[in-house]
């Protein structure tokens, strides 16, 4: 059976490499001995698989290849951002020298051309690095297209522009299997849903950030998208949705836990801050529990990070002014140790549950 994506192919290649190492160890220790014909058949099978994966997906066949691959991922990420910025500044540098029809035509042609280039590069680029660069530039061109139309014709700023941007980024993300574009699309969606939530309460849409509760509907929607839409074909996509969902939930909670006046609720700010602190602690603890239970490491790790941030923020409020600094940091250190013990017990319990289930 052919793997579905490059990530699946890479995963299977890694498993083959681990299997080969383990087999060699078992043979050395005399636990298992394969006949010469079995060896030959196994090697031929594995080599055939790896050759096919390399040809189709350009996977890393060894650890050195993986290290270089990580470097290429970083380079393509930074390159994508830099090229997107370059497109912005290139147009800004010269747009004032063109007539309005020429400006509109250039913007439209640039957007269509970069989109076409992305579709072509995706077809010939097995690694995905160059596709990522091209897709990011295409997205930047589309954003620039709409922003500049607004500037050229003095159009009233509107949150509606976020919708086509989100749709375009998600289209590129799903078709080209690009997590960077998925993140861009999710950010546009977060901004749009939060702005709409804000305008329903009567505020001007650009002020949506001043009421952190505006982000909560988007947070819940993002967290549950992977439950409603299956993402098996898209490695890492479900995880990105969940992490963005948690960030969109816990960051506003963290703000409200320290700035009660930012809430919609007409209550005493101190009461609101206490309420959001409790909500933050219980929410992040719930995320840890859910992450362990569902085997979602991203959710469990995000929960741990936010639980620690909520805890340390409280420690800072309570003791930074009153405690000697050495004692303050000692308390932080001891809390971290206590946290390690709790997580170790949770992990042991999870392993035990897994063993009894199997």
């Amino acid at each position, binding site marked *: 059976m052919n793997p579905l994506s490059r990530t699946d192919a890479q995963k299977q290649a890694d498993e083959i490499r681990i299997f080969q190492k383990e087999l060699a160890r078992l043979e050395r220790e005399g636990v298992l001995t394969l006949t010469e014909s079995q060896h030959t058949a196994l090697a031929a099978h594995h080599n055939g698989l790896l050759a096919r994966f390399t040809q189709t997906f350009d996977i890393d066949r060894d650890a050195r290849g993986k290290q270089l691959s990580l470097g290429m991922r970083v380079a393509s990420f930074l390159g994508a951002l830099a090229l997107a910025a370059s497109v912005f500044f290139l147009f800004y540098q*010269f747009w004032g020298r063109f007539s309005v029809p020429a400006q509109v035509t250039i913007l439209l042609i640039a957007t*269509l051309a970069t989109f076409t280039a992305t*579709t072509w590069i995706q077809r010939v680029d097995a690694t995905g690095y160059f596709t990522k660069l091209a897709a990011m530039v295409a997205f930047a061109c589309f954003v620039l297209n709409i922003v500049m139309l*607004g500037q050229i014709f*003095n159009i009233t*700023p509107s949150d509606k522009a976020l919708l086509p941007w989100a749709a375009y980024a998600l289209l590129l993300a799903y078709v080209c299997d690009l997590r960077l574009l998925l993140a861009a699309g999710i950010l546009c969606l977060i901004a749009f849903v939060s702005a709409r939530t804000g305008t329903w309460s009567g505020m001007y849409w650009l002020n949506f950030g001043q009421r952190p509760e505006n982000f909560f509907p988007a947070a819940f929607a993002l967290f549950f998208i992977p439950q409603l839409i299956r993402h098996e074909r898209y490695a890492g996509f479900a995880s990105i949705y969940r992490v963005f969902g948690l960030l969109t939930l816990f960051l506003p909670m963290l703000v409200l836990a320290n700035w009660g006046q930012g809430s919609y609720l007409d209550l005493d700010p101190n009461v609101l801050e206490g309420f959001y602190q409790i909500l933050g602690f219980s929410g992040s603890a719930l995320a840890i529990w859910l992450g362990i239970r569902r085997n979602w490491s991203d959710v469990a790790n995000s929960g741990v990070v936010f639980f620690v941030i909520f805890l340390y923020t409280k420690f800072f409020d309570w003791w930074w002014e009153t405690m000697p600094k050495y004692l303050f940091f000692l308390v932080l250190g001891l809390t971290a140790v206590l946290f390690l013990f709790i997580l170790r017990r949770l992990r042991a319990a999870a392993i035990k549950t897994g063993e009894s289930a199997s």
Partner: protein
Amino acid sequence: MMTRTRFIIAGTALILATNLVALAGVAYNHSGEPESILKLSQRELSLPYYAINQHDNSGISLSLRWRTLHVGSDTRNGFGVNYASWRDASAWLDQAKLAALGFDVSKPVDSTEGRLHYNKLLSKEVLLVLELDGAAYQSALARAKEAAEQEQSLFAANPDNPKLKERAKTANDRYLQETQKNSRLFAIDAGLDNTALRAKYADRTRYLIVRGQVRPQLNEVDHKPHLTGYISRLSIEEVNVPLSFRPLFEPMLRESGRRTQSVPHYEVTLTYGKRLEPWISAVHVKAGAQ
């Protein structure tokens, strides 16, 4: 997974549809009778404060300078750009007007609950009426003149007092600035219904209806809390200069880059369409400006 053909069709359709919607909006804005046509000078539409060759942005845009008439007789709101961003309260933007604009002003201002409520209210986008060279500007001019005359008579009574001399000079400079440099465009009213506002302010060459943001605030007046509103900004404050008018502004920008004291003089015909979005329809540079 989506096939390549469907991907190309979907992407192209999305790009074309988005551009089409945006351009259709522009065409609608430009269609029919303009909402308003005002002839504004450099006092109301100012050049950017940078030289053209010092920026990565080759576009030129003009900034709309507008003001509000301060509640009291204070004449200080005659300087700077967009003076209302100082949160100066307008006399007309009172509690009743805020209620008409849809703000919940039912809570008593002198209670803890009220203070909490009003401090939390955020900006709302409403329609603002801007008046060019009308009664509001005449009031500002009269106040500046009165202040200058008062300071002058104080100094005349005490000619040896250097502080009074300085104050008289400052007040006179302010008066001159009010007559020659300050914007004559004043925000005088707000509402939610364009038709109703236009019926009240029918002169399309004097009254501009634009979108802007209004926010309530609690002030202290005679040591008592007083609810009023302020205009935080207009939704469109920059107007793009098309290529056809660019040669008229480029020499002025180069001049401003040299930090000379000369002020360019021009008249821009600013047209607002059905969607209350502006465009420059004519520019006339006055003699000696370049």
